[in-house]
């Protein structure tokens, strides 16, 4: 019986560790949401959207590295995670090379 209860106690302890680590990340994410919401109402003109996207990127990286366990992942998995952004950048850059330089 006691072994059973000791096992439970140890399990509860391990469970609490998992909670605590992830809770910290959760708190940071919530703060970032409030931050980006607040900044949206400041009259920064041109820099509003880029700033909001920067904070969004920060949240995304945070979730990617910790919740999606990229920090533990091997090289080729990290490569797979990051590869898409190169092609997305190419898509945006060359499409806007047309849109931006069009004579109207």
């Amino acid at each position, binding site marked *: 019986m006691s072994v059973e209860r000791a096992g439970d106690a140890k399990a509860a302890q391990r469970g609490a560790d998992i909670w605590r680590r992830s809770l910290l990340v959760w708190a940071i994410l919530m703060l970032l949401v409030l931050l980006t919401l607040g900044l949206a109402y400041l009259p920064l003109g041109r820099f509003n959207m880029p700033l909001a996207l920067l904070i969004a990127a920060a949240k995304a990286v945070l979730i990617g590295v910790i919740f999606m366990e990229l920090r533990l992942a091997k090289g080729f998995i990290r490569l797979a995670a990051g590869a898409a952004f190169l092609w997305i950048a190419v*898509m945006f850059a*060359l499409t806007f090379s047309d849109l931006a330089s069009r004579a109207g």
Partner: protein
Amino acid sequence: MTAAAYHDEYPSQANSYLRDGHSLWSWLASTDHKRIAILYAISITLFFFVGAVAIAIVRVELVNPNGQFISDDTYNKLFTLHGIVMVWFFLIPSIPNTFGNFLLPLMIGAPDVAFPRLNLFSWYLNIAGGLFTLYAVVAGGVDTGWTFYTPFSTMFSNSHVLAAAAGVFVAGFGSIATGVNFIVTVHMLRTRGMIWFRLPLFVWSLYATSLVLVLATPVLAVTLLLVIAERWFGFPIFDPTHGGDPLLFQHLFWFYSHPAVYIMILPAMGVVTEVITCFARRRVFGYTFMVYAMVAIAGIGFFVWGHHMFVSGQSPYASLIFSFLSFVVAVPSAIKVCNWTATLYRGQITFEAPMLYALGFIGLFTVGGLTGLFLASIPIDVQVHDTYFVVAHFHYIMVGGSVSAFFAALHFWWPKITGKLYDEAWARFAAILMFFGFNFTFFPQFLLGYLGNPRRYHVYPPEFQVYHVMSSTGASVLAAAYLLPPIYLIWSLLYGKRSGDNPWGATGLEWTTQSPPPTHNFLAPPSIETGPYEYHEKGEAPEAGLRLPHPAQSEPR
């Protein structure tokens, strides 16, 4: 592990995958990559003949400058059907999903692909997409061309664009599933000793193709989703009257569709390397350059889509950028053609049917690639864009290249897939007939193109008629040539001589196991120490007169 233990642990003789269950259910629910490959082979053959019949009617119609047999509307629907079915239901699945599925695990020494159930699911996605498209055909057809340009496809066409777009949307996810499956298989299921630079080039071509499949197909899915959203819910995304820009659709569509042509040609390049090295008995010339060339094609293929839009209202500066990048993407293809030709140097060349198709591929792909340079230069593209010159160019690459390689693969690995030998004389005749039929069909279209005959034209100025007559007669010869392989291959299935495990004396890992291979591919997990094409010592060349085990005679096991 002592030899005895080795033997009783691994049986010396195993049941071939064909005898592993004969019921329909054992085929339709099988997660064996070899059976799924055959399911794909059957489905793409059916779709090939649907597309071929559609274009046969069009070619007959075009013999007359103001055609009478079919109406304008039927004409538009026929060439659209030909486009959609051939691109998404024949060419894209043709080599990766049939020979890729069958051979990838065999070539890297794996029992199966990484996610067998996902592999079967991708076939059902392809079939579901196909049924959607066939429903669109039966219900009345689509007249927008396989390119679905807006605002015609979203606001002005009253044909079944929704069903066709949904069909291609679903089939697209089939492609993504195959891409994911192959990438994980190549990364994680290579047998002992199979390091990256000992992979056969066909496996490299499948890996490069899978990268393009995974990265490009989602953008097609989103493009078709937006067309569906605009046409069904009335959201004015590409609608110019609400400030939308139809060119945005073209950017998104061609961002997928140009890499898609590399999805079609890269596996063909892999097959040709395997066939040429085997029948010239030589190592491939510049293995590492061939690998980097294929990966470069897959990578830079995403940079060049703007050359489809030189005259579509794209800004001249963007056109110049895309024109320059399109010339750069031609360099890896030039490297590959040079390396194939150099592989033949000092070889022991024999001319079985697969070799004829492969040599035909090099010639036709060279012409196709060079005409691509014409289209990459802006002043010439202004003259030949959307004319028969473009039709001839991409048919030289897709039919002259990809379909020739498909038949080369079909004949080269036929003994491995079925364990039977096909009739060599008929196969060579069909290959040569196909080569001449193809050239006679599509070479006149280059002249037609520069003369200014636009593509997708039901009626055309009378002075172009002589070229159309030439092209249509060539097409009938090509059609006849396409009917030959099914005949003698089915004959070979029923009455063909049993082929040994390795009738061609080839060096691939797939030739070391039985023909047809057992369900788990290898009796014992193989391990390798050498590179892929060990036909002779490094630096030497196979000496004249050296009696290599002539492929046809090795006695069946």
